[in-house]
């Protein structure tokens, strides 16, 4: 006979549990009770204690203050400091404008720097076509700017603006000095039709020396203004081919070199020419000769 239980020390001791002890042991061994006592109750007690501790306003303030201090100390570390800003691809004037617009006070912590906001600020400038903002190793803020290229000048309402190829304004300027190589457009709504104007300038290269400006009429069609007050009125649709027709006529007949005030090709099917005053008088006289009204 062997026993698997621990041998009892006292002789004559009854190893049998009392009925109550037996039932209590069994009750304690029931799975839900064990789970409740060993898992649920400790978790509840711990959660409650931590929650009660956190409910005290003084503790909350202490925690917030501590967290703020830790955060500030991390932010103030030299590894996260940004000391300078480099702007590439911008003219000195534009770079200065960008610096003023961003208005950063270096050194600044990397955590306080919102590169998206800086990007939006820079890209909102008229003269900037595109910008890329990066923070480089060693604590430098790098702004790579691509400027808009001025292609035309636009005079309207007494102001003079530089426009890029898409018609977007680059800057107001006071005078045309130094920018005389840029062609001039005028009239309301001319900025919306800058690509068309550029195509017209391109097509009108043979008479470029004589072109003074392109004038937008009623925000729908172009007039080409030449020197001597000559005007070529172009149609709304396909103005380039109309201008090419006029130029071809100029090549063959020298139309524009004559005393013609207005070449009207608004209706491409019917080209109309208004003569200058002298030519008109001359024509009248010639016609009178023809009719025999006037005699020499």
């Amino acid at each position, binding site marked *: *006979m*062997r*026993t*698997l*239980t621990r041998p009892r020390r006292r002789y004559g001791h*009854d*190893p*049998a*549990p009392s*009925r109550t*002890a*037996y*039932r209590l*042991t*069994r009750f304690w*061994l*029931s*799975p839900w009770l064990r789970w409740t006592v060993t898992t649920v109750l400790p978790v509840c007690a711990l959660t409650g204690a931590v929650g009660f501790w956190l409910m005290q306003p003084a503790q909350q303030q202490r925690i917030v203050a501590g967290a703020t201090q830790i955060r500030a100390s991390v932010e103030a570390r030299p590894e996260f400091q940004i000391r300078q800003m480099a702007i590439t691809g911008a003219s000195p004037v534009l770079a200065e404008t960008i610096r003023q617009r961003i208005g950063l006070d270096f050194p600044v912590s990397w955590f306080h720097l919102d590169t998206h906001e800086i990007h939006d600020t820079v890209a909102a400038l008229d003269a900037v076509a595109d910008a890329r903002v990066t923070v480089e190793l060693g604590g430098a803020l790098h702004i790579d700017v691509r400027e808009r290229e001025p292609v035309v000048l636009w005079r309207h309402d007494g102001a003079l603006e530089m426009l890029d190829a898409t018609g977007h304004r680059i800057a107001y300027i006071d005078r045309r000095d130094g920018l005389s190589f840029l062609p001039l457009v005028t009239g309301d709504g001319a900025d919306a039709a800058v690509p068309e104007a550029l195509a017209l300038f391109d097509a009108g290269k043979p008479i470029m020396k004589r072109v003074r400006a392109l004038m937008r009429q009623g925000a729908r069609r172009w007039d080409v203004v030449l020197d001597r007050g000559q005007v070529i009125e172009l149609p709304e649709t396909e103005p380039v081919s109309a201008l090419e027709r006029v130029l071809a006529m100029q090549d063959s007949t020298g139309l524009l070199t004559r005393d013609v005030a207005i070449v009207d090709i608004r209706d491409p099917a019917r080209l109309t020419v208004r003569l200058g005053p002298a030519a008109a008088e001359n024509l009248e006289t010639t016609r009178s000769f023809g009719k025999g009204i006037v005699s020499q």
Partner: protein
Amino acid sequence: MIELFEIQRAMRQMRKAAMQRGVVAILDIGTSKATCLVLRFDGGELPSGDGVGPMAGQSQFRIIGAATTRARGMRHGEIEVMAETERAVRTVVQAAQKMAQVRVDHAIVSFSGAGPRSYGLSGEIEVSGSEVSESDIAAVLASCETPDIGTHRTVLHAQPVNFILDHRSGLADPRGQIGNRLATDLHMLSVDRAAVQNILHCIKRCDLELAGLASSAYVGGISALVEDEQKIGAACIDLGAGTSGLSIFLRGHMIYADTVRIGGHHVTQDISKGLGIPLALAERIKTLHGGLVATGRDDRDMIELKGETGDWEHDRREISRSELIGIMRPRVEEILEEVRGRLDAAGFDSLPSQKIVLTGGASQVPGLAHLATRILGQQVRLGRPLRVQGLPQAATGPAFSAAVGLCLFAAHPQDECWDFNIEDHRYPARSLRRAVRWFRENW
């Protein structure tokens, strides 16, 4: 017969419910010790592969708690003092629960006493269709006539051990075979009703629910005999303290079980009476120095008999080991002769195999195998229980054959495969089901 199958089915349902809960207590209440094993069923997959048998279902469970204690209030495997037995069961269940760290609500119990008696029944029917169906098997099982076992006795086990289909005998499973007459042999084991009721009451008083009941002679055979021995035919003799159970297995089924109401405790009593020493000391001398075959050296091997009577001469005696053997041997011989008589009465001689396996606590006496070959025949071996998962080393001895066998019985009960529906004509109300069955069988 129908009533018997309903009882069996109810017991099976209870056992299934217990196994679904996952934890079952195995309770072996013997004369000298009570053992409790806590089994956890985790529904483990049976290992599959070539040559791997069902392994008696032992891979499905794991022993997570084990305890044993001195049984009290037991005599010849029956409860003599209810309160004492209850305390022993409480002790052992509490200790096993403590080891397993889980509460057990269902207990499967084995006991050794209550005078088991075997009956061989037979039934015969005409097969209803062309081939044997499950309802035919239910019918042939129901056709076995129950012998008059007396009002004071109850059926403990009833298993079909053989099927005969048109003069072809020895069928294990005749389902799907074609024949006209189906007959079956059924082995039924009856026990004393009062003893069983006492055990049920004891379990109930310990707040446990009974999920199964088995004779320890049967379950001892399940664990001590290897599978081949069960198939070819063998007898298992479970030498306990108060009783010696014997069970005969053939073709994997128990075909006979009986108990002899003498055991190792009687040997202890003989030593106590013969030498005039207390029972505890006699038990100690028996286990430490006991033997059955005397040699010349045993005459010089002196054993001290310490006593506390106050009589110096009486308390300072010494006996030689051969004297002890001289006391023990006649009693063990008597047990084995009695067992031989029961085997002869059961017709064990006519079985194809004469294998006899000795197990149980009293089989640990040195020299028993030698003595048993003289009385029981040459093919005698000492059996130890099958090794199962989680069994503590201390519980692997032959004294735990019945407990381990009960584990195997719980995991893989032999009547499980005969869980057939009750015959249709017993359900006159369920005519729709009969109609469906008729339709299915005839179309």
